[in-house]
């Protein structure tokens, strides 16, 4: 199988793609997708580390996988709140362009 280093490189690349998406894209939906991508990149690393360490210690086996399940649930809740905020914004102002949102300053 792939070594842990390879998977960490993949994690880092996916995470950086996520960062780029959050910072550079204008469409709110794409921003939300990028946020999810960041979390899922880390999930990959967690599963990989969990496999490397296996049954090493603490709370029996699979702690990395358990962490991943928790992250999945959190990511779902986050997505739901992101989409709800998106709905509120769309209903009011009929735009999902991030740049039109930044009216406040100072």
């Amino acid at each position: 199988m792939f070594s842990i280093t390879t998977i960490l490189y993949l994690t880092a690349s996916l995470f950086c793609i996520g960062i780029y998406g959050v910072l550079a894209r204008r469409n709110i939906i794409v921003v939300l997708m990028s946020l999810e991508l960041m979390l899922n990149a880390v999930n990959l690393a967690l599963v990989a580390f969990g496999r490397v360490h296996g049954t090493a210690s603490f709370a029996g086996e699979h702690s990395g996988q358990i962490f991943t399940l928790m992250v999945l649930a959190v990511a779902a809740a986050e997505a739901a709140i992101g989409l709800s905020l998106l709905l509120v914004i769309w209903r009011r102002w009929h735009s999902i362009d991030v740049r039109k949102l930044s009216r406040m300053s100072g």
Partner: protein
Amino acid sequence: MELLISPTEIEAILPAGILFLTGLVLLLVDLGGKERADSGMNPKNHLVFIGCAGSVLALMALVTGGGSVVTSLYAGAMSDDAFGRFAGALVTLALLLTTLGAGGYLSSIGQNRGEFYSLLFFGAGAMVLLCQATNLVSIFVAIETLSLSVFVLAGYTTDRRPSSEGAFKYFVLGAFSSGFLLLGMAFLYGVSGGSLALSDIAANGPQVADDILFAVGVLLMVIGFAFKVGAVPFHSWIPDVYQGAPVIAVGWMAVAVKVASFAALLRLLVAAGGGETLSRLIAAIAVVTMLLGNLAALNQTNIKRMLAYSGIAHTGYLLIPLVLGLTGTGFESGSSMLFYLAAYSVTTFAAFAVIATLSRGQDRESIDDLNGLASKHPMIAVVMTLAMLSLAGIPLTAGFVGKLMIFRDAVEGGYIYLALIGIISSVISVYYYLRPVVAMYFREATGDQHEVEHPWGLHLALALAGGAILLLGIDPQALVEFSVESMRSLLGG
């Protein structure tokens, strides 16, 4: 592997459990179907009473339980020590005050709904858990639950554009920072031999301290927390969110999120260490945060934005004990942080609650809106003055004692420059903290301002907060001893 739950474990989770349960009850009690939509003007005292009962119960569970230090509950997921209970009690106290104030304020803006209260309580339960959490999973889940509840609170008034805008900014940056936090956690998990518990990370720390993944992991987690507490350069969301959110929710998030995040960060750094490099980095962040927060607050005319920048500055002061702890002098200075958090909580809540009393239909948030308040409502003006003096650090207030403790620790720990910059920026801050006071006492009111409807809860909360500022300022000894003891329970294990 039979699953067993010991009485100590139930005792440890009881406060958070009470808070979550109260949140659920509040959510279901205020379910009136669709016709409920126009009942937002109703003060709904029963919601406030349920909320107060729940938070008082949780407070009692926090204060009475947990005689001994138990470090490994739920397979290492949480601990039961005086430190966690102290920070949790601060959060619950802020919750009690916020609940008291929420009924009157929300009905004045026509948005009094059960959701607000249950979001408060879900967030508070997560914060109490965060103060007690000792493994990476429970820290992450708690911090996410509290963040999600606060995101929604920030956007609670969906009919106001700044509220939704601020909430969305907060959401994107908050989720972004959670990504960094989580990546840091994954790295720590990876290098510390497959353990998620902070105690194992502490035990393995010295062996892997040279590992680049370990250093990067701790750094990423610190960045994640820096977002949550609003340290420069991760502070940009704070003014927008504070300006947009309903002011009673701002008071809540300014206080409680900071208390819980700093408690968790302190626990994390005590376990993971991080050494000289991280200490220098946090020192730099502290200096910039103190200066930038205070300087940017100088020319704000919107009082919510002013308090937002002032909150950033206070984050800077609160970072100083972390710097001291990381340099090897030990984390005893964490007790100053605990006391400062207590002082900051009551003070900041008082300031935001005063603004909440002034709102009619919408927030009155310009400093000019305070003009002549002293002649019409002398007691509210007195509380506001106390809050401003305490934030500025004038003697005989809680804020003074807190700053004194932190700066004294800095001097004793050999960080005289940190203390000096702290004192200089505090002196700068006196200027803008006095502006509302001047407006209240020396300017004439214009128009129909200050027609306060006297919601009883808000005034009770104001009185409690004002009394606490004075009490902590005049006779801080008991709380100082208690925070020293709490810190010892964290370090002694």
